[in-house]
């Protein structure tokens, strides 16, 4: 069977039997999505690559503890998310971070501009990239996380519901509201 066509569940089973190629297929399948998600979380695409690499290694090391009743994608994103959050906590302790408060009173970290590390640095339209970044930052923490999981992590609504342990209907409704805000903020580009 071609690994590229195999489901995540099948690949996990092969990987549990020691097949490194099966796990490498999972790495290939999720690398860009996990990096995109983490780069928005930590504000640095290079760091996001390192974190996603670490997430894959941890997933491989703990594969025997993976509960097959959950999806591999949500498990992997949870590992990556925890690594990202840990990194942000450490960074807050180490450096004097710049913060501002968003509309709902949640603290938002302002990342110093560096185009080589910019998660949207590959955008040709820099004005659009800047507006998208600004629009996402303007979202409440909860909406922002859902948007990142959906459009940067490319997770399905069902996967997000599992990741957030939230009813599917709530995910649908919250993403609809988040999109309403995004459509308004990006009206000039739509």
């Amino acid at each position: 069977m071609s690994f590229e066509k195999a489901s995540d569940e099948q690949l996990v089973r092969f990987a549990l039997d020691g097949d490194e190629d099966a796990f490498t297929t999972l790495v290939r399948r999720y690398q860009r999505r996990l990096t995109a998600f983490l780069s928005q979380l930590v504000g640095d695409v290079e760091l996001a690559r390192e974190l996603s690499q670490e997430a894959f290694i941890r997933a491989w090391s703990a594969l025997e503890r993976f509960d097959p009743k959950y999806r591999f994608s949500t498990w992997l994103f949870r590992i990556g998310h925890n690594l990202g959050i840990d990194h942000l906590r450490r960074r807050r302790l180490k450096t004097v971070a710049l913060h501002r408060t968003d509309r709902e009173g949640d603290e938002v970290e302002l990342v110093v501009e560096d185009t080589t590390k910019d998660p949207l640095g590959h955008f040709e339209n820099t004005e659009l990239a800047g507006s998208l970044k600004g629009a996402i930052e303007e979202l409440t923490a909860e909406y922002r996380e859902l948007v990142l999981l959906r459009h940067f992590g490319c997770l399905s609504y069902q996967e997000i519901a599992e990741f957030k342990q939230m009813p599917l209907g709530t995910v649908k409704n919250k993403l609809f509201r988040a999109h309403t805000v995004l459509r308004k903020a990006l009206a000039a580009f739509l």
Partner: protein
Amino acid sequence: MATTCEAIQELLTEHLGETERLSDEERRHVELCPQCCEVAAGESALGLIFARVLPPADPTVEGRVRSAMKTARRRRRVLALLPVAASLLVALLGAVMLGGLPGGSLLALLPVWSSQGWVSLAASMADWNAVFTTAAGATTALLSPGVLAAAILVSLAGIGVIAIAARRWRQVSPWRDIG
């Protein structure tokens, strides 16, 4: 906003404005409802933006993960052997408490070392029986029942840990695929 509109707009958001994913009835509603039509157009455009957010793949990540996988696997094997070593020690301790191990004669009893094959094996079994009977008799005479019970428990625990550790080790052993 009417409930129908909100439900349809939620669907439009989920499918990024792709009206083909809606039912005929929902699609007809979108065609006739200016608000839903506007959301459909906005979502399609938003979808085009989101389609570009993935960074280019980094081909070096795969290689780095692969080499780390090999290191992680080696480390797991070594770590999995630690409880085996620890449990062997515990079992040994239990055996010693029960009356000691047969000493220098141990190797001589093994049939592998004997040129007499099965005859030697039968003889050694008889010897082992004698060793255990003597050891058990001496132990019961010397040790109080409490200490004896504790020693038996320690031995059983040791055997249990060996069994669990052996199973764990098998899961990460390089020979797990055989058979």
